[in-house]
């Protein structure tokens, strides 16, 4: 997250750093374009891309505002949002600590191993003692440093009178170290420093991989939170205003929201009327007109005139933060398989301790001597640690979620993957799900000049129709015309002057039932109509679902004619004019007949159906209610993530079963061997670490499953 600091020192003015989240970056070309073209804008000193987290750090003149920087990025073709310094900082610190511990453990393991190999090859007398002492000197600080993540977790568990996987690991490591130290001091034959250090190294490798996968999944959540306003102008009782960062806002504050500003908290309008773009929360692309007393949410953008609002919910309480939290649950899901694994591990941990204690007592009674008995007990403790079982499900789900996230699908809950793997019939809503739900203009009637003027005007407005038009024209590779004295009148349109001629994008004078704008250049007028097209890959997605033996159909609340048209285009059955209650009833009927329906929908009217379905997916443009009800959310124009989700879910369940099978088989084989004393602590450490790594590696095979 901390991109290397740029060379700020250019002698003249001090610069300011601002970070943006830019989800649209896809390739090396994007990095090059942003880093080369941005500094050509006046006032921008340098830009540095962090591709992994899809962020750009811009060094710029403090005089330039965030809006100007966002516009500069938009002109390059990238949507961007300013973000806070480091919203998920604690997470990153934890991951860094793990990586450092891993580095130290690696260093210790290599050196101790080197010494141990010489001892095993027959070093005798003084040399052996010297090497044991050297091993001790290296291993003790390394264990103290690298073992901390395990020791602290085990300590926490013991403090609350519980036990977890880290308890047997910690006991095993500490016992092995203490025994080795005793051996070293008394000049004994065997020391097990290498076992302890190696165990820590491999376990840390597993943990660091796990943390890395989680961090990737969270980058998408950061992007969502980035849409919230970062600060707000708070009006003091004496009438003066000051900028307050979003996390320092408190309910009850009075805030002035300028035109074009993104809201930083939820609240109620006290004074003023305006239109806001609420598409973030409601999925409704048409601007919403709001007046005094209306409730507005963080993440909404003020399209019209300035207004004052009284804050009701701030920082982590806002509706958008709530959605982000829901998404975050993907990382720590509580699916049935996870629960089984958790229960198994929890029930298993006391068994591990009991078995180790029994092994010690048993061998003592058999007359093996306390030293050998203790060695066997340590081996049992290490080898039976239920790590592989604990990792079996979460790793597979985290890797699968990460793979899907790259293709634009956020899985909110690990159990969703289990349920997605079982679906056998899919129902799609029409508007906003099979179609884009976003107005796209028909620009066939425009000539080259008109296109340029239209783009110049559309770019200077935040109205959804303008943005739809600008996007379409930019896709066509149109260069914007230079427009001067641009003026936007809320509810009317945007106007300006181009080469001395008055130009405008306005509401059509004749009202139609379709969305339309009129482009005026001097006295010429052209009316552009907007349509809601099908998602480009809708039919391919349905074909892929058929390939997975899932029949698809449309279940829409829309009128018959438009639904029929889409159904014919896609060649699937359809049901139109279904009320939310009808949709719910359809799904319940399917479930009662023993089917496992998948519901894909976006509207508020789909909410109950999404909740009732066996599994559900909503587009990222959906209302917050739908996003909350759905198991997964897909972002962008493509529908393909829906079919991919089903395919990846099936693969995930295969991997989960393999992992479980492996973990159980490993324990069934290794425990008896250890109990009967065939395993030294070193072999135990290797076997146990390998079993964990095998599970992690098997799960990693899912990384490419969404291709």
């Amino acid at each position: 997250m901390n991109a290397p600091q740029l060379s700020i020192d250019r002698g003249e003015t001090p610069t300011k750093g601002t970070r943006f989240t830019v989800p649209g970056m896809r390739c090396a070309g994007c990095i090059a374009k942003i880093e080369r073209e941005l500094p050509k804008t006046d006032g921008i000193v340098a830009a540095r891309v962090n591709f992994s987290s899809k962020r750009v750090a811009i060094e710029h003149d403090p005089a330039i505002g965030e809006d100007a920087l966002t516009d500069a990025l938009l002109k390059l073709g990238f949507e961007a949002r300013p973000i806070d310094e480091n919203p998920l900082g604690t997470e990153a610190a934890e991951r860094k600590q793990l990586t450092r511990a891993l580095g130290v453990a690696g260093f210790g393991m290599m050196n101790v191993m080197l010494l141990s190999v010489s001892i095993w090859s027959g070093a005798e007398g003084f040399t052996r003692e010297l090497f044991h002492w050297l091993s001790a000197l290296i291993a003790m600080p390394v264990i103290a440093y690298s073992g901390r993540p395990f020791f602290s977790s085990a300590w926490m568990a013991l403090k609350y009178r519980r036990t977890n996987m880290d308890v047997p690991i910690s006991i095993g490591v500490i016992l092995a170290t203490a025994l080795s130290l005793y051996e070293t001091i008394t000049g004994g034959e065997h020391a097990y420093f290498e076992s302890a250090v190696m165990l820590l190294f491999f376990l840390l490798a597993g943990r660091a991989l796990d943390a890395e996968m989680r961090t990737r999944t969270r980058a998408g959540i950061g992007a969502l939170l980035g849409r919230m306003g970062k600060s707000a102008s708070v009006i003091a009782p004496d009438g003066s205003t000051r900028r307050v960062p979003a996390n320092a806002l408190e309910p009850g504050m009075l805030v002035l929201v300028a035109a074009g500003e993104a809201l930083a908290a939820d609240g109620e309008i006290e004074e003023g009327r305006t239109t806001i773009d609420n598409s973030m929360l409601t999925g409704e692309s048409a601007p919403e007109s709001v007046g005094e007393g209306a409730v507005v949410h963080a993440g909404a953008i003020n399209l019209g005139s300035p207004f004052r609002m009284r804050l009701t919910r701030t920082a982590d309480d806002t509706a958008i933060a709530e959605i982000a939290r829901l998404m975050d649950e993907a990382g720590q899901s509580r699916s049935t398989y996870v629960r089984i694994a958790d229960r198994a591990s929890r029930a298993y941990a006391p068994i591990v301790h009991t078995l180790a204690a029994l092994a010690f007592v048993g061998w003592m009674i058999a007359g093996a001597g306390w030293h050998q008995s203790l060695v066997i007990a340590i081996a049992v403790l290490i080898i039976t640690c239920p790590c592989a079982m604990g990792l079996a499900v979460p790793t597979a789900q985290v890797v699968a979620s990460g793979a899907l996230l790259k293709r634009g699908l956020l899985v909110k809950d690990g159990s969703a993957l289990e349920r997605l793997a079982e679906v056998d019939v899919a129902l799609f809503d029409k508007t906003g799900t099979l179609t884009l739900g976003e107005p796209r203009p028909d620009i066939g009637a425009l000539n080259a000049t008109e296109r340029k003027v239209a783009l110049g005007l559309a770019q200077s407005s935040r109205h959804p129709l303008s943005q739809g038009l600008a996007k379409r024209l930019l896709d066509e590779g149109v260069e914007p015309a230079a427009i001067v004295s641009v003026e936007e009148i809320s509810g009317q349109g945007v106007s300006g002057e181009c080469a001395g001629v008055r130009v405008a994008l306005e509401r059509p004078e004749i009202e139609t039932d379709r969305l339309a704008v009129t482009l005026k250049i001097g006295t010429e007028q052209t009316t552009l109509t907007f349509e809601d097209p099908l998602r480009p890959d809708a039919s391919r997605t349905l074909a892929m679902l058929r390939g997975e033996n899932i029949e698809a159909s449309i279940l829409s609340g829309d009128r018959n004619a438009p639904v029929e048209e889409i159904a014919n285009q896609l060649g699937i059955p359809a049901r139109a004019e279904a009320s939310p209650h009808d949709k719910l009833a359809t799904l319940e009927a399917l479930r009662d007949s023993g089917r496992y329906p998948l519901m894909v929908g976006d509207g508020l009217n789909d909410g109950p159906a999404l909740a009732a379905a066996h599994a559900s997916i909503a587009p990222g443009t959906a209302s917050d209610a739908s996003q909350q009800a759905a198991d997964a959310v897909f972002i962008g124009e493509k529908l393909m993530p829906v079919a991919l989700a089903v395919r990846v879910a099936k693969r995930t369940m295969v991997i989960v079963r393999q992992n479980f099978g492996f973990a159980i088989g490993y324990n069934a084989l290794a425990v008896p061997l250890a109990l009967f004393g065939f395993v030294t602590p070193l072999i135990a450490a290797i076997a146990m670490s390998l079993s964990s790594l095998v599970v992690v590696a098997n799960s990693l095979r899912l990384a490419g499953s969404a291709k």
Partner: protein
Amino acid sequence: MTGLTFLIPIALLMGAAGLAAFFWAMRSGQYEDMDGAAHRILIDEEDEANP
């Protein structure tokens, strides 16, 4: 035996140097953008130097 008095400190020093290099790399943010590094190698630098 006498060789060991040189070899072991050398081995330890080299290991410690590697560890120090790793810590330095972490601190200077070289592990922050692994995917970016993979892509950056594809960027053509002919027309002008990267800022």
